[in-house]
Structure formats: structure tokens, C-alpha cells
């Protein structure tokens, strides 16, 4: 199948989301602002939940709200990410497969991304992600060579730096938004910070 590019902004927000809730399973949606066709460019993500991932109501609500926001901002939902609380197991759960299936109904080349908690320590130089794509109604491991993270070293450095400075505390997921609706689940403040730290070459794809 095709290539997938993961932007600096998308990676950093997923990374910060998992750092903000290290004791929970977390999930979110992967978005693209690029036109369909060719490589799938994941340009942004929306962090969704950090509790009760398998329960339906809030997931449905989040999917609908993000869908609407995307149609207003020329983006589309192209995938789903999850990080399991149990660091030793980074395989997709039933609920991950379910939600990814739903996204694949609307977007053929949907991706399912699992964050590997075991590989997120500073000494790991490789992106701690495992990607799956849909082949014959099943989610199969994607060939690593079709996954691109431009400027990975810089992205990794920015992620570490933001974690050190406590910027993960600024991240808002949908769960947090429901606890306090003044909080912005599109994370504009964080997006700005990331843009300030990233070089022009590491900007939007």
C-alpha cells in the first residue's frame, strides 16, 4: 500500500498526550489537511480520551465533533492512534480495531497507529510507533519503509524539550475538554509553540 507521512506537529502532540497520562491508555484521531490521493500525510491529530476507551458515548461525540471541525477547516480524519497503559503490550485492542474500522469506512487508506511505550525513553533513537493498514478487511503491520517522518531528529529533540519544560501540561484532550469546556481540544496554543520551535523544513507537509 501507499506511503504515510507523519508531521512534526502530529507526532509531538501524540507524544505529549501519552506523557500527560502515563498511567492510562490514551487515544486520538489522526488528521490530514492535504488533498486525497498519493501518500497519506498526517498533518495533525486530536487527542481524544484517557479513560474508558471502550465506552461508546464520548467516542461517538468526539468523532462527530472532530468530523464537523474538519469539514470547516479543510481537513479529514485519516487515522487513529492509541497508547496502552500496559507498556509491555503495544498491540491494538478490540476498541482500537473497531474505531479504526469506522474511520476506514470513510477513508480507504486509513492508518492505525500504536505508540510503543516501551520505546519512548530518551535513549531510543527510533520513532516509538507501530503502524497498521487495512488489507482484505484486516489490519496488517505496515512496512516500515513506507512510513516517513521528515526531520525526525529535530522532531524528537523538540518533543524532549517540550516534555522537559512541562509543555505536555498544556495539552487538552476531549476528556479534559468535557471536564472544563473552556479548554481547547484543537490545541491552538500548543500548535503555535511547536511551530515556533520547528525549523521551516519541518513545517507543514
Amino acid at each position, binding site marked *: 500500500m501507499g506511503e504515510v507521512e507523519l508531521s512534526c506537529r502530529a507526532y509531538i502532540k501524540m507524544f505529549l498526550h501519552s506523557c500527560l497520562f502515563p*498511567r492510562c491508555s490514551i487515544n486520538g484521531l489522526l488528521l490530514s489537511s492535504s488533498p486525497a490521493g498519493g501518500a497519506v500525510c498526517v498533518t495533525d491529530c486530536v487527542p481524544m480520551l484517557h479513560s*474508558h476507551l*471502550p*465506552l*461508546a*458515548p*464520548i467516542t*461517538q*461525540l468526539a468523532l*462527530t*465533533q472532530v468530523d*464537523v*471541525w474538519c*469539514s*470547516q477547516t479543510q481537513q479529514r480524519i485519516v487515522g487513529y492512534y492509541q497508547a496502552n497503559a*500496559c507498556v*509491555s*503490550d503495544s498491540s491494538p*485492542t*478490540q*476498541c482500537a480495531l473497531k474505531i479504526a474500522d469506522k474511520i476506514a469506512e470513510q477513508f480507504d487508506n486509513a492508518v492505525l497507529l500504536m505508540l510503543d511505550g516501551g520505546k519512548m525513553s530518551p535513549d531510543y533513537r527510533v520513532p516509538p510507533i507501530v503502524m497498521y493498514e487495512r488489507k482484505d478487511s484486516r489490519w496488517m503491520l505496515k512496512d516500515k519503509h513506507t512510513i516517513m517522518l521528515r526531520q525526525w531528529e529535530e522532531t524528537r529533540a523538540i518533543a524532549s524539550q517540550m516534555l522537559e519544560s512541562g509543555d505536555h501540561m498544556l495539552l487538552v484532550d476531549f476528556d479534559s475538554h*468535557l*471536564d472544563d*469546556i*473552556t479548554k*481547547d481540544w*484543537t490545541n491552538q496554543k500548543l500548535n503555535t509553540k511547536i511551530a515556533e520551535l520547528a525549523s521551516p523544513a519541518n513545517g507543514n507537509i
Partner: protein
Amino acid sequence: MASISEMYDVGWEEMRDKLRKWREDNCRNSEQIVDVGEELISEHASKLGDDIWIIYEQVMIAALDCSRDDLALTCLQELRKQFPDSHRVKRLSGMRLEALERYDEANKHYDAILQDDPTNTAARKRKISILKAQGKSTEAIRELNEYLEQFVGDQEAWHELSELYINEHDYGKAAFCLEELMMTNPHNHLYCEQYAEVKYTQGGLENLELSRKYFAQALRLNNRNMRALFGLYMSASHIAASPKVSAKVKKDNVKYAAWAATQINRAYKVKLSIWTATKSSLLHLFSKMD
């Protein structure tokens, strides 16, 4: 780096009181506890009197949570010196071994406690936590069920069991646990709301009606619970849209949904005069879900 007392202009008494509040509220803000506790212990230990032991315990657990084994060991050693034969301290030793993923050794500690005192609930719960950490959900669920047969009033255990069942997609059993919790905590809006979410997830008309009732109950207990408000809107809308309901039921649920929609709009208007994206997306949300 500046100390906590410098950064926040607080004295040691305020730091001690903050730690007490976090203990009482059972907060898991481990990074903060470590920051405040470490400074309190190293600079003001002599002023704390007998409080120091419970603070050592609190800081030790927080340190384990933050992978600060150095600090955890320091606290543990002080506690061991002061309380050499204590089961409570032995349990802390076990927890440290768990943090280091030395589960077999940790289990030996807990088994030793249980040999001495079979009613020690803390040790039993740690053993169940180990099963959970090892990904052995089925065993954890079985052990927790056995535990609850003996200790039927343990709220924390019932809630833990409901979480385990939810992760296994066993919604019927999760609902049962939440029913126990609602019975003993009728004023807790969170249990009502979680129960409603489980019922909604189970699906089917009967469950949807139950979920709507419990979302409404959660709102009665706390009218600012946004999850309950959205849940009420969604469940009422789904019921109203079902071909199996009578005209009256449909009419009632349309009313409930409309009421919820008004409340949601009102909540967002009040809080978000500057954020238009949500407002318009909410309008779309309602039209899409009808």
C-alpha cells in the same frame, strides 16, 4: 534550580499541610508530591514530629510513581529503621519491588504478610495489581471477585473491577459493579454517569432508555456534568429515532433531547464567547444526529 519554598513563597507548614490535603483527597499528583515532599524531608525533617512517618510513606509511593528509586529507597530505609516488623512497611517494600518489575519477589513479600495475617487486604490488593501489571486480566478479575466475596464493602475494589470488565468489553458485569457502587453511594453523580455510559454502549432500546434515565439522574446530582448532558442528548435522540417506540415515547424523548440541546448551547455560550468553532460545530452536531 530554585526550591519549592522560593518558587511559590511558601513556608514548611504550608508544604506539610498541602501534603496532608493530597493524602486526604487521595490525589495521584506524584510529581508534585515528590517535589514538595523531597524538599520538606531534606530541609525540615526535625520540625515535622510524628507526621514525618506518614510523609515518608506518601513520598515513597509518589517517588515510585515517578521512577525515583533513589528517593523511594531513602524513605523506605527510614521507615524500616523505625518500624522493623511492620506489615505496612513490608507492603511498601513489596511495592518498590513491583516498581522494579521484580514481581516474583514482590509476591513473596505479600505472601509472607498473608501467612502472618490472612485478613490483610492491602497485601491481597497488591497481588491483584501485579496480575494487572502483567496483563493477566482474567486472573486479576477472578482474584478480585474472590476478594469482593469476602470484603463486599470495598468501594475501591468494586470500581477497579468495573474498570477491568470495561476493558474486557464485559459490559453486563461492569454494570453490575457500578450498580453496587450506586447503591452504596447514591449521591455520586460519576457512578450514575459511568453506569449510563455502559448501558449506552451495550445498546438496544431497553439499555438506551436506562442510559437516558441515569444520565438524567447524574444531572440531577450535578447539573454541570457535561458528559451526562451530552449523554442525555444522544440517548434521547437515539430513542426518538427508533422505529420501535410509540408516538408518546418518541414525543417525550424529542423533548428531553431538545432540553439537553438548549442546556448545552447555553453552557458553551457562557463559557466560550471567543471560540466560535465549537458553537457552529455544535449546531452541525445536532442537525447531524437528528
